[in-house]
């Protein structure tokens, strides 16, 4: 049976206890019910989660800002408190200049506007729900936006290099007590970190911590290390909330068609851009 050994005897004991004493509570529960522990004795992370905040607009403290003029107040950026520990992203000088350029061209250059996959950690705090499916070999995270998803390999003895660079990278997970720790690398350097042009390169390595704070709250931490862009590793921290709405699910958000005018409008028979 492919039970990972990282938790040692306590994991196995917990697992067998569940099997023997409370099979109904494992196999027979409805999907929406809260369980303190998963089948394997680890915290129960599976379910639909969402970040509530303005990190998707700007990871740092920010005042309200105008959005796309055509959208009136609908497109405006609401004010928000930052999620960066220490309140500063330690850009190298030339990288800060790039960030500034990104900000200026964000209406058209932001990969999110083009319906490109959001990358890590941005996928976590997009303003949409995502679902964790907690299995014995893989933990899947499925984000509705741009059909992005991650396979977190829980069954590899040690991290394997990514076969190719990609938007969502390659993720390896392990449990440290009650915390799911995920190391992600192998990114293509195309993704941004928010709608304000914060960014990283293909050298990015992310270490994420998913820390339960009760059945319906996870504290999420991501440490970003990228020596080509930043002078030191830095960390963002925010809570993730379980979506308790009846029948909550991640709906496909196939956004391609909403990006096509931005991307191909100039190639229409009647150009729109």
């Amino acid at each position, binding site marked *: *049976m*492919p*039970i990972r050994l990282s938790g040692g005897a306590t994991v196995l004991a917990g*697992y067998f206890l569940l099997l023997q004493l409370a*099979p109904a509570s*494992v*196999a027979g*529960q*409805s*999907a929406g019910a809260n369980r303190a522990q*998963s*089948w*394997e004795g680890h915290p129960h992370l*599976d379910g639909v989660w969402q970040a509530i905040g303005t990190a998707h607009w700007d990871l740092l403290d920010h005042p309200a800002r105008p959005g796309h003029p055509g959208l009136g107040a609908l497109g405006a950026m609401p004010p928000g408190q930052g999620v960066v520990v220490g309140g500063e992203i330690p850009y190298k000088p030339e990288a800060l200049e790039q960030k500034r350029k990104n900000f200026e061209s964000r209406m058209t250059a932001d990969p999110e506007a*083009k*319906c*490109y*996959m959001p990358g890590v950690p941005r996928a976590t705090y997009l303003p949409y729900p995502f*679902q*964790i*499916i*907690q*299995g*014995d*070999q*893989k*933990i*899947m995270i*499925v984000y509705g936006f*741009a*059909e992005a*998803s991650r*396979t977190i390999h829980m069954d590899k003895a040690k991290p394997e290099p990514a*076969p*190719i660079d*990609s*938007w*969502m990278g390659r993720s390896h997970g392990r449990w440290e007590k009650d915390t799911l720790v995920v190391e992600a690398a192998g990114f293509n350097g*195309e993704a941004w970190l928010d709608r304000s042009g914060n960014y990283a390169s293909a050298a990015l390595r992310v270490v994420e911590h998913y820390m339960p704070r009760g059945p319906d709250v996870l504290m999420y931490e991501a440490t970003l290390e990228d020596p080509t862009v930043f002078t030191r590793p830095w960390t963002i921290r925010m809570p993730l909330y379980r979506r308790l709405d*009846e*029948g909550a*699910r*991640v*709906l*496909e958000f*196939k956004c*391609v*068609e909403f*990006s*096509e005018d931005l*991307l*191909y409008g100039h*190639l*229409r*028979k*009647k150009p729109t851009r």
Partner: protein
Amino acid sequence: MTTRAGVFAFAAALASVAGGADLARAADGELRQVYITASSPLEGVKWYVQHMKCEAIADRRDTARCGEVELVFLVQPTRGSTQGTGVNHISFSFPDLTAKMKELEKVGVQGSGVRLQRFPDGSMIRDVPNLFKLGFIFDPWGTRIELVEDADTLGFHHVHLSAPNPTATLAWYRDRFGGKPARLKGQLDGLLFGKVWLLTSPQSEGVPASTEGRAIDHLAFVVKSMDQAATDLRRQRVTFLVEPEVPKGGRTPAKRAFIAGPDRVKLAVVETGFAGVESRLASAAVAAAREPYAVPRTPWGEPNLQGVWTGNSAQGIPLERPTSLGDVKALTPEEAEARRERGTLGSIWGYEREWRDTTLGYVKTAPSTQVAMVVDPPNGRIPPLTEEGRRRLEAARRQAAGDEQGVGPIRLPEGPEDLSPYVRCITRGLPGMMIPTVYNNGLQIAQGPGFVTIQKEMIHETRVIPTRPRQHVGPGLTLWLGDPQGRWEGDTLVIETTNFNGRAPFLGSSGGLKLTERYTRISPTALEYRFTVDDPAVWTKHWTGMFTFDRDDDQYELVEYACHEGNYGMSNILSGARAREKAPGTGAK
């Protein structure tokens, strides 16, 4: 071609090695077989018969005879072209190279997979002074072939090695197997085995990669007595990879051994009369039918379907039974091979079989012998369309015609909306996204308690299927891939999906489609997939298709198919359409 200059100094060096080394006597061997990795032995033989004037051999479906040399086609996972290994290419000689090249150029990659390797100036032929005219092509499986115009030796001409130290390599072969040191046209040092030349050029950079699993997997030397040859070779400290034996499936009682050649070239030593090995790829589905199988459980007690699967063996099964096949129950393995090869030939992927087989693992399992996917109705034909269905199918076909210029009437897309959701990288819809295509057929299934995720590599789409009851979304919420509800029926995962938006039609299917899928593991390596299409607005009766996915956990990993992110095709199609509108006289609207 950059390597010719280096060979003139060989003769003297070879002589000195020969004179200086007091080696045991050479085994009396003749270079007589070349083993080529191909996705289909039948197609391999056919290709060399058609283009290189080789002959098929009765009772040896995997072998073509080319003069003194036999080409034997091995079906195995391939690791790519001959280039970069110690066996760079083989060579055939034709009396009129210019005519031959013209003929092959006409055949082209779409005809039967002839790939020309042009010189940097675009030409196909070089006339090397004092040598002969020559040019290079590839067979469909990545074997590099030099074509020469050498009237002295027509037909199979030579095997060309690549070595960091060509002199030492030639000496190795001469000392172990004999062969007559000679100079081809007084220019190139080599060894002659009968009429077959063994030549060597300096490796251009690095060290050669192992030939094992490459387009030329190994060469074979034929010896009269295996016992004597083995004794001679052992005295020369040759490493035996496989001891002399009559191999399993050997067609004759002749023995074979494998030894390590220089420059990581794998060599076989075979006894006179060796006629290859009878072997076929295993078919997961056929093996499954023979033995009962208990589907494993996840730790939380649900049937375990997890792993990476591919649709490669099912690729090419037509949806409907071709009328030409009458009521035959299954194709023969030969017919199935031919169907799979034809399926990727004549399309733009035709010349990429080498790529297909290296990256996609097509050759790991036998191609399916299934006649058609439709299993209900039993006649294998989709039930008649309704009036509405006919309209919808016609509209879907018109849209597809806009995708591929040259298929159907030219209709220039005015914008992205005129192209299909597949070309736009939105979705292939359901059940379309489950059906194998030529490439990126990966399917990853992962489970957690109460949920199954089904991820398809093509386009990259992930479905999250609840296996415990939950309320369907309301009628106002429609989706490209619908709203799924799963359940376990014994060992089978059953998924019913409704709430389609009807914009990614499968043969004209509508938003009213109710799709029922059934996933059943029928063996450790086979996952049977059935889909029932129930769409009364389009078809007068529901119908069911079936095929099998193969497990490929060991090697296959889904890559991130960032389809929309890299959709250069979209820009190219649209800018091409705009250019065409401006060009006078194209007749396009």
